[in-house]
């Protein structure tokens, strides 16, 4: 099941996939190195992870053409673990992350994505972009002017080179930036940080290695608080990226398979000495832009990455960090959703608040999972508040019999229960009160309590109370409602209501 794919997913677009795979592999190298540095591990940990994850998700992933590798969002979550416990515990945490993700896949938690509102997604990508940018700042503080000049020059090359005639659109500009800056640094023998200063690079193929830690409950206690957010953020970013690629390519994807695929990829990465990773928004967009559509593009990206890194490690060591910083700034600019800033005046205030709250929480805590949690919570509250306005009560008085009939319309639930009670006038002296609920919906127990309260108050004032249409109104309380998407049942409950 996990390995099943249509022939066209692999062979539908061979030329485009291979070319795009090469472009993506070239762009993955600086990112994998940069993210390893964020996490505080040797660049080889990120590079091995990127290779393993790209290779495995090509087969097991649910979204053909999506690029998964070591990512910044995940790297940020593991900083403390690496600092306090070391690399071996990171590998165990990666394994556990994979297991949790597979579990999520089998529990079909991918469908929970529908709870994440659009504004939360926007906040997530914006926060991610800001974090990637902030992570570059240490390389830009307390350094000589050469570094600033090289970074600025690198950005210039990246964005201006594509306008060159003939070769502009057939050679990846980040590659040109890296090659040129490396050549300049080597020629001028500049004393600036290079990739080689940051730790070991891979010189062999990755090999199987069981993490060197005691398999005790103590270990589990150490890694679990890291694995859970890693698993959550990994799935969130992967599923969000999958949705973006779905939109771009006008095709569907299997979200639950993606969860399992990410899990298997992370387990593999952990066993071969790599850090945890997930899908990458920026790289996946680059892949589609370069003409990649099928699984072959992901496979090629992983394979070319490894080949280039293993055989050119002596050269990669010479790359100045300034070149990597330029590439990463490009990634953060490309990941940021600029339309959410440009359109900020046109979007509803609640959407902007949700987006900004998500961004602020993430930038503050460096934890994307927390940001998404706050965003989802806010979005739900705003929604509940909006829906609670869909309720009003009007009434008619029959003076002869001293009877007032209240007609209740709309949605009554925890948030609107108090305003529901406030509609009733208990000071009025009446013989009889009729409450017509035919056009109301009682969604939860709070609504029922509110109704009880109204009835009791009227009775204490000496009025007789009659309820009309209670059965129709309370049909929505039953939890089973909503699980069955049966048009007839929904018609029965909602029918005749406006």
């Amino acid at each position: 099941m996990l390995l099943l794919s249509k022939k066209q997913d692999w062979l539908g677009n061979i030329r485009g996939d291979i070319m795009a795979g090469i472009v993506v592999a070239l762009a993955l190298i600086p990112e994998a190195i940069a993210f390893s540095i964020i996490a505080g591990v040797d660049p080889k940990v990120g590079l091995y992870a990127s290779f393993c994850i790209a290779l495995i998700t090509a087969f097991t992933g649910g979204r053909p053409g999506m690029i998964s590798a070591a990512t910044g969002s995940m790297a940020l979550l593991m900083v403390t673990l690496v600092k306090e416990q070391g690399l071996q515990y990171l590998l165990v945490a990666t394994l556990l992350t994979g297991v949790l993700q597979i579990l999520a896949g089998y529990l079909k938690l991918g469908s929970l994505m529908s709870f994440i509102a659009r504004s939360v997604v926007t906040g997530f990508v914006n926060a991610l972009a800001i974090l990637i940018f902030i992570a570059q700042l240490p390389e830009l503080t307390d350094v000589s002017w050469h570094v600033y000049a090289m970074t600025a020059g690198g950005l210039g090359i990246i964005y201006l080179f594509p306008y060159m005639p003939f070769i502009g659109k057939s050679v990846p500009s980040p590659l040109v930036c890296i090659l040129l800056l490396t050549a300049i640094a080597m020629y001028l023998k500049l004393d600036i940080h290079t990739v080689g200063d940051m730790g070991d690079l891979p010189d062999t193929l990755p090999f199987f290695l069981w993490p060197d830690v005691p398999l005790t409950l103590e270990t589990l206690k150490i890694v679990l608080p890291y694995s859970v957010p890693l698993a959550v953020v990994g799935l969130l970013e992967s599923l969000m990226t999958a949705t973006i690629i779905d939109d771009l390519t006008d095709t569907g994807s299997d979200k639950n398979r993606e969860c399992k695929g990410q899990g298997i990829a992370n387990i593999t990465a952990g066993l071969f000495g790599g850090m945890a990773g997930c899908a990458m928004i920026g790289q996946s967009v680059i892949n589609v832009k370069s003409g990649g559509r099928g699984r072959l593009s992901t496979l090629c990206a992983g394979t070319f990455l490894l080949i280039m890194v293993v055989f050119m490690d002596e050269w990669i060591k010479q790359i100045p960090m300034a070149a990597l910083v330029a590439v990463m700034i490009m990634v953060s600019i490309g990941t940021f959703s600029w339309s959410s800033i440009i359109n900020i005046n046109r979007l509803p205030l609640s959407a902007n608040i949700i987006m900004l709250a998500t961004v602020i929480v993430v930038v503050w805590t460096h934890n994307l999972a927390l940001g998404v949690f706050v965003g989802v919570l806010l979005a739900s509250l705003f929604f509940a508040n909006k829906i609670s306005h869909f309720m009003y009560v009007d009434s008619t008085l029959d003076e002869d019999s001293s009877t007032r009939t209240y007609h209740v319309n709309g949605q009554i639930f925890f948030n609107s229960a108090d305003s529901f009670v406030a509609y009733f006038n208990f000071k009025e002296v009446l013989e009889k009160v009729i409450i017509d609920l035919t056009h109301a919906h009682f969604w939860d127990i709070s609504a029922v309590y509110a109704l009880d309260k109204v009835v009791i108050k009227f009775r204490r004032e000496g009025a007789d109370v009659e309820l009309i249409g209670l059965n129709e109104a309370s049909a929505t309380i039953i939890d089973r409602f909503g699980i069955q998407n049966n048009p007839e049942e929904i018609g029965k409950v909602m029918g005749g209501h406006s």
Partner: protein
Amino acid sequence: MTNQPPNVLACIDGSVLTEAVCDYAAWISQRVAAPLELLHTINHHPEMANNANLSGNIGLGSQEHLLEEIILLEQQQSKLKLQKGKLLLQAAKERVIAAGTADPICSKRHGNLIESLIELEDSIRVLVLGIRGQVHDNKNKQLGAKLESVIRSLHRPILIVNDTFKEPQRIMLAYDGSKATNKAVDMVAASPLYAGLNCHLICVNNNEDTAAKLLQQATEKLQSAGNIEVTASKLKGRADQALCEYQQTQDIDLTVMGAFSHNRLHDMLLGSFTHKMLLNTNKPLLFLR
């Protein structure tokens, strides 16, 4: 859809065989008195990339721009395909009306042919399909890429057209006593399509007695249905060769047979009889499944 009478469905794609497909479909629809539906599918190829910008950078609003660019490109391509499909269906409609079919239904569907046919299966009475599509025009020894999948996935009679239309007079029914061919005999006996035609019932079997017995049974079945003139013959040798030779010498216009009764693995190892017949004959084949 379920309340409608099942249609004769003709698949139109603009290949050389399209006209013949229209003619045969018109002929069948008139004989069985079923409505004729002309189907053209418009297939996007989302697995194929149309654009390739290898500059490998992403900047301000890259994702939005990329989406717009791709949508614009695909919209233009789809519009062209829609236009082409409209013209094709118009031409096909005129042709079948000229052939005497009143009121053919024209349908256009998005998606690939096999998926569309599987969705439409319940409303199909007979499917009429060219042996090869537009991609393989003028490659005489090549079968259409989707042909086998279509035949395997549908359980409706399928007429495979491989030559210009000639109103069938003599049909050949290959019979070997298997379940698939027994079903074929039943269907031939029951359908108004074959009424008044000369049916050559052929059994290829190296054992004469078995062949005679099998032919005896089938002939009775066919004759009991009435209006079918049966000529029974026993042949020897390899079934596909023998049948093709017979077809040529007796000037048979249409061959009726079962199809792909083995699974794909069996056929991959031992070769498929249906496949050989498709390759070697130059008269239309009607597969009853």
